[in-house]
């Protein structure tokens, strides 16, 4: 079996917003390669809709301090405040940088970048929603991904498209490269590097109903765990309130930003009861929980497990009037069907295509959908990966984007803060990895660098059991949705953990149909499922241990936040015997002492 070897100073795994931003910066100073299992333009950053946050104040007063506080509060005080402050103060500069790269933001009448309100983002003096989300219609992520990819082409960045990274090479405790399979040929490639940046996105495919792409399988965190390194705060996974019923496809919070409201079977705008100040624009964890309670108490539409999201102009105008919502010039906020069409063209297209519903004329049936990983690979502000609770740096290893946990999102992410996170920390990763590479040597590659990856694939190829990959996946997704979802209990999570372990055993007895080399997606889907199982297990174990409710982690049996005992980050390792070890590290608190969170 021939193995091809490449050498680059910096190797970036992932070509989404974080990976491409890192590539633009790393490639200025170091020889750089980007490896991606998808063509870069297929990355899930392209699915992001609503916007990217920055306190530009283009439409009304706003300040980075307010953005910082809102993010801290949104995180239910679990976010590290130094990192949050860093991100929010960098935000305007980064959004302008994207604009200078040509990103076609929507415009205000003055020709500036257009901004809309989003959940949890407020004017800290009035407590009212503030227009902070910079957007390009409802395809902001698409425009970010396209723009960054275009700039990479302009700057001749080297890409290995449709190469799937299977393993991280560590030598003498330092990152020394990665092992990847060239999907089109089945060949194994070793990428020898001085620095590696992990930017593989999220893992929503652990759950049954999700807004996430098929490719969201948690490859990097699973790889990290296999190397004996920890992952952080995995119990915090965000359920977005408005996924299309049954399909999970996301309906952006921008719909509520533009004035849409959630309605129950009795026709009530129920968020009034749960978040009297900002109502439908409360934080996502708050809204998703409210929806679950409404459905549990029988007020789902026709008693079913969905509610309505209503953005018909008459509804928007009715509630805008009740709320006293105004335009920047003080006139009452009123919309027409054309406004809705112009501002949310893709959402309207999704609803028409998948539901046969025209949102301008009918309300949309929605339910919470697994959306975003707040936890992930622990890093510091420089995006260096951390090995333990003492924040020991792993030399040469970096992580950015959704697969990383800096932690700026803590227990609950505010909408539009992820796209910001990608560009801010993607850039940091590119800069610091190149800087590190300039002062580092290539570590000698072990002869058997590719053996472990090879053996993993062979185990799947040679496995002769009668378990189907799809069955195991289905059972995992169902169990996780049911028991490690919006509401959790000790009993349920223990059952889920047992189930996941049973599924991991059964995984050893799978069989796949395709034993070829060319585009063997049967093999790679199975390999991805093993990652999902690892991630599901560690998520559940972390959640089970946390005996409190905070942000997205909400327990019936411990309904209150417990700062006395649990104002700390979880670090989780999987030891060689398969046991999971949990340790904790303090949250960085600078300016904002924890207080009760009301919206």
């Amino acid at each position, binding site marked *: 079996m021939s193995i091809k070897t490449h050498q680059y100073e910096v190797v970036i795994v992932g070509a989404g917003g974080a990976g491409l931003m890192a590539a633009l910066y790393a490639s200025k100073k170091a020889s750089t390669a980007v490896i991606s299992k998808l063509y870069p333009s297929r990355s899930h950053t392209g699915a992001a809709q609503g916007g990217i946050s920055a306190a530009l104040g283009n439409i009304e007063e706003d300040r980075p301090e307010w953005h910082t506080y809102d993010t801290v509060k949104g995180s239910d005080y679990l976010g590290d405040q130094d990192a949050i402050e860093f991100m929010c103060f960098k935000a305007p500069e980064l959004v302008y940088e994207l604009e200078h790269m040509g990103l076609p*933001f929507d415009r205000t009448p003055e020709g500036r970048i257009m901004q809309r309100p989003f959940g949890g983002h407020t004017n800290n003096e009035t407590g009212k929603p503030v227009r902070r989300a910079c957007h390009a219609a409802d395809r902001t992520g698409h425009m970010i991904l396209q723009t960054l990819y275009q700039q990479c082409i302009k700057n001749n960045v080297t890409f290995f498209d449709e190469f799937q990274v299977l393993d991280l090479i560590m030598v003498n405790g330092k990152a020394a490269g990665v092992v990847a399979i060239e999907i089109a040929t089945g060949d194994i490639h070793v990428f020898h590097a001085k620095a590696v940046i992990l930017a593989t996105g999220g893992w929503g495919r652990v759950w049954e109903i999700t807004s996430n792409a098929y490719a969201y399988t948690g490859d990097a965190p699973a790889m990290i765990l296999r190397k004996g390194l920890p992952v952080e705060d995995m119990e915090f996974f965000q359920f977005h309130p408005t996924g299309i019923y049954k399909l999970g496809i996301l309906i952006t919070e921008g719909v509520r930003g533009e004035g849409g409201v959630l309605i129950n079977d009795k026709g009530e705008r129920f968020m009034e009861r749960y978040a009297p100040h900002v109502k439908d624009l409360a934080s996502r964890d708050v809204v998703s929980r409210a929806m679950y309670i409404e459905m549990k108490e029988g007020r789902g539409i026709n008693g079913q497990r969905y509610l309505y999201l209503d953005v018909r102009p008459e509804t928007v105008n009715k509630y805008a009037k009740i709320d006293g919502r105004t335009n920047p010039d003080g006139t009452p906020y009123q919309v027409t069907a054309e406004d809705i069409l112009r501002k949310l063209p893709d959402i309207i297209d999704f609803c028409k295509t998948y539901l046969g519903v025209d949102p301008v004329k009918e309300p949309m049936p929605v339910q919470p959908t697994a959306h975003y990983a707040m936890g992930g690979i622990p890093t510091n502000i420089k995006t260096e990966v951390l090995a333990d609770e003492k924040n020991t740096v792993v030399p040469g290893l970096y992580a950015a984007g959704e697969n990383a946990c800096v932690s700026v999102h803590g227990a609950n992410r505010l909408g539009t803060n992820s796209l910001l996170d990608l560009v801010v920390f993607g850039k940091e990763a590119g800069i610091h990895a190149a800087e590190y590479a300039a002062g580092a040597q290539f570590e000698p590659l072990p002869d058997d660098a590719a053996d472990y990856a090879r053996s993993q694939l062979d185990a799947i190829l040679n496995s002769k059991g009668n378990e189907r990959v799809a069955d195991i996946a289905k059972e995992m997704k169902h169990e996780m949705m049911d028991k490690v979802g919006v509401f959790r209990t000790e009993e349920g999570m223990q059952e889920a953990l047992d189930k996941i372990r049973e599924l991991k055993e059964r995984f050893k007895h799978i069989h796949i149909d395709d034993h070829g080399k060319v585009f063997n997606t049967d093999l790679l889907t199975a390999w991805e499922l093993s990652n999902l199982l690892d991630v599901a297990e560690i998520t559940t174990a972390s959640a089970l241990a946390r005996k409190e409710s905070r942000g997205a982690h909400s327990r019936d049996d411990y309904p209150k936040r417990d700062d006395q005992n649990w104002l700390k980050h979880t670090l989780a390792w999987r030891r060689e015997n398969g046991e999971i070890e949990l340790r904790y590290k303090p949250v960085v608190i600078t300016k904002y002492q924890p207080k009760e969170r009301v919206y």
Partner: protein
Amino acid sequence: MLEKVTLKILRYNPEKDAQPHYERYTVEAEPTDRILDVLEKIKAYQDGTLTFRRSCAHGVCGSCAMRINGRNRLACKTLLKTLDTSKEITVEPILGLPRVKDLIVDMTTFFDNYKKVMPYFINDEPLPEDGRERLQSPEERARFDDTTKCILCGACTTACPTFWADNSYVGPSAIVNAHRFIFDSRDRAAAERLKILAGDSGVFRCRTAFNCTEACPREIKITKAIAEVKRAIITGRLD
């Protein structure tokens, strides 16, 4: 309401087959299922060797362009209820690019053509002194809105008879992406792009077959965009 549907899929495994051939699969599916869901079901429960690309599953990543009943469409945006399920549904790879395996084609030429038109923002003038955004009016922004929607799925280019005949023609997708910059008031390289597109492999190869516009899952008015580029070349004006 489950119903039985039959897909007739053009299969090709380069490691085994000399020629592509059709195979039929019957599955139970809902009218609201996407062709992608049906393909996933077949792969999961009937034949794991069936191979296709997909990622987002809702028409935004551009992975899953294929020929469904002879038309280029996204598998994840084509619901069974929009097809006649009393008959077999034919699923084939898009045309005009080398076959790799089953529904997967080699997209290299497609992306190379894209790269030929300088599909990136160019403006080397000094940035605004306050470091903020370059100004652009909502009208100027609207001028190229339609062509910013492209997801590089290739459905248009691989529906184009001119492209089938000659891969060096950059194709509708590349022109759409050039249009996105040519008509952006902030960009400064329109002249260069127009020069490229005025050349042998450029817009004048277009015979206005309209296949592209019909194929585009993002409903981009491609033929109109091509016409605007042609006009800009002829008149030398960008209005």
